[in-house]
């Protein structure tokens, strides 16, 4: 089976009976293994809420989310941490690294806590770090390295458990343009060479143009969906801008 994520009629409402905010309003879609999907939309369109429901950070109001064969909306709260450990990897805008741990320890943390033996962990960390180009900073601490390096550390951490799906929330949000570019190349590599399935939330058209498929959200609904197919990145980027214009998003949000 090729399907990694299947979302069926997902709804997420906030507020009370007088004043309901429909953050997600009946969304359905699938992501297959090996896809690199971006979710775009203006602020408040429901991107992050969508990501959080998949990450089991938020509950849903109705609908189903299947990761593999598991319906995560039916998971008990105490089972969610094991589910996250086995199936998901995370990359956040503000890195979420632990500053008392070295880069190496940050990457290996979930394996160590999972009880894996040090002899097994060490080569694994090294090989992934090498691929992402942070081998020489493994013994440093997060406050000693640059933002781009931090984010690549977070990518390593997300990759090391070989998760079914990597969720990235505005991963380039806190980076300068050069580091952003490098990170997106890295993610592209992760997707193509390591066959990682990635779902990335962003409102940056340039970041999105690295993906193979883009979902556009507006007011909690899927507004449009476009594929890279055989297009060049430049063409894809222009197509994204066109859709965003249609979407009526603020231009300052786009660039």
């Amino acid at each position: 089976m090729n399907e990694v994520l299947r979302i069926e009629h997902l709804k997420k409402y906030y507020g009370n009976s007088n004043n309901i905010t429909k953050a997600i309003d009946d969304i359905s879609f699938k992501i297959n293994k090996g896809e690199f999907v971006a979710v775009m939309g203006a602020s408040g369109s429901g991107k992050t809420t969508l990501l959080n429901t998949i990450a089991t950070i938020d509950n849903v109001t109705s609908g189903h989310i299947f990761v593999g064969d598991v319906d995560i909306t039916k998971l008990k709260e105490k089972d969610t941490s094991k589910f996250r450990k086995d199936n998901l990897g995370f990359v956040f805008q503000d890195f979420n690294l632990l500053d008392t741990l070295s880069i190496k320890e940050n990457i290996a943390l979930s394996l160590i806590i999972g009880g894996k033996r040090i002899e097994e962990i060490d080569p694994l960390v090294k090989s992934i770090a090498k691929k992402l180009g942070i081998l020489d900073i493994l013994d440093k601490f997060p406050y000693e390295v640059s933002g781009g390096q931090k984010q690549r550390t977070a990518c390593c951490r997300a990759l090391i458990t070989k998760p079914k799906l990597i969720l990235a929330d505005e991963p380039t949000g806190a980076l300068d343009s050069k580091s952003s570019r490098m990170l997106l190349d890295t993610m592209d590599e992760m997707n193509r060479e390591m066959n990682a399935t990635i779902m990335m939330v962003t409102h940056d058209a340039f970041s999105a143009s690295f993906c193979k498929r883009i979902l556009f959200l507006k007011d909690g609904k899927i507004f449009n969906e476009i594929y890279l197919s055989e297009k060049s990145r430049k063409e894809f980027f222009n197509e994204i801008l066109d859709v965003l214009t249609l979407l009526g998003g603020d231009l300052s949000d786009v660039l």
Partner: protein
Amino acid sequence: MFCKLALRNAKRSIKDYIIYLITVTVAFSFIFAFNLLSDAKEILELSSMMENFKLVMYVVNVFIIFVVCFLINYTTKFMFQKRSKEFGTYMLLGIEKKKIARMFTLEILILGFISLLISIGLGYILNILMTYIIMNIFSAPFKVNITFSLTAFLLTFLYFGIIYLIVLFFLRRRISKLKIHDLIYYEKKNERKLRFKEYRGLILAISLFLGIVALDTFDKQFTRVGVEPSFGVIIICLLLIIVSIYGVIYTVGDFFLSVVINNKKIKYRKDNLFVARNFSAKVRSMSFTLGTLTVLITLTLICLNMSGLFKGMFEYQIDTYAPYDVMIASNEEKFGEFIDIIDNDFTIEESYTYNTYKNNNNVVKNVLDSADSGWRDYDQLIKLSDYNKLLAMRGMEQVTLNDDEYILHVNRGYEDFRNNKSLASITLDNGITLKQKLFTSYKFTSSWAIGSGYIVVVPDYVVENLEVVENHLVINTKEETTEKLANALVYAAASDFCEENEYGYTVCYNLSNVTVRGQEIANNNGMMTISLFVCYYVAIIFTTIVGTILAIQTLSDATVYKYRYQVLEKLGVEKREVNKTILKQLALFFFLPIVYPIIISFFSIRSLNKIFKIALVSDTSYLGYFALSLVIFFGIYLIYFIATYFSYKKNIND
């Protein structure tokens, strides 16, 4: 790895929460030192009173544990909140809550054990210091004596265990209830909005009203000596005051803000608006904690006031009850025996015997009877010549009387009768009428007239055919008298008043007609030591805990406020001005919560003074004790304020 992580986190926490750790260490040091003290044989042997010290310490420690527990629990909760993102990350990575809880528990325990270890060393030093002070009070020889006391260790560990069990229980419960969403997005939470905003003024008014009612009711409980205040009413007053404090603190921040905002002159002057907004937001977010701190400050000040009153009372009492080294009221046939006993161990400097006489028509007692005038059912008279001799023995000035005059010397409880018309002229049993020449309570001593709170001084001829009540023996010795002498005298007077205690000492009950200065001093010192040490102990611990919580709160805000100050600077405010704003803001935060406690403690000591004043040097000496309390409190509190101010400024300017 698990332990390593906890250890590293602990190391980082030590740096961030150094003020808190110092306070916890100091608190445990005091607990340990007092445990050592109340178990030290040399202290217990000082006076029969010191037995009670042990008991009182157990009771006080319950309160102390309660408050220390509050501090540790609060800080733990606080640390957890500040690091919620870190814990959220653990959860995202799939680490179970149980493991996270275990890791944080380990970290908290590491910090706790470090404090405990240091406090044992520190506790010994404190113990030596306190022993020195106590030995000085008793003028007993002092030598440094470090003993291992199993009881003290066990008790301290027991208290430590209880505190951490409670703290960890709450921590576990908090963690198990947590949702990962709350952890990750904790930092985006705003300061709280005031609920019941429209009733703000009303709540403040009601709270203040409750406070006034409580203080007034409290005041009415203490009319004068002899009128027993109702314990229930006092407890209700205390509860009302606590409710009032919470109410005031809950609304005062916003009240303060609205005053600033509604007055354009104040609003746009300098940084007023900035400071007021920050202050009210802060108070709103932590009103409950701030209320608790204010209650603690109030208790501290009341405690210090009490210690002042007690100290004053004890010092005055010795002079009132035992102005002479030995006073015995008995049958003069036994006086020779008593003098022999005293002469054995002491050098008698001065010795005098006199009589008191009975006036059966109670012309004075009938007037004073509305107050408590003792168990005698007749007036006691004393001859002027005897009276003058007794005054001379105390170094007081002589008095004179005409043949138709008398002096009424009373204790200070009878001050109300100073200008009483019925006492202007009295006719005694034997038909002699005397005019009042003098009404005084100056340095009255009950040893002149055991069983009465007053004595009537008459010209010598008046007593000629009156019945003698008792013979009195008054002796001043060269050396300071002792408890042992008192026991020997009581034994001689009434042997059935004595028994042997568990340490093999003969302990005698106080016999009202034998007064030995040395014994009074020992008893008073015992009482004084107990009450002073307990009051100071409570006050120090409470003050440091209040200081710590305010310091932690303020310092953790530094990161958030840094941004606000940067905005100020970008708007063109000079660095110097920003520093002034910082000082203003911290001062407001530290010192506004003190205003109400100062008011409450002032009125409560004023009420208590109505009872205490008869046992104090003067009616207004309580003001001195009140001032002293404030000095002690501010002495400790200012240390925390200054430490906070400087580290805060450092954090902002970094």
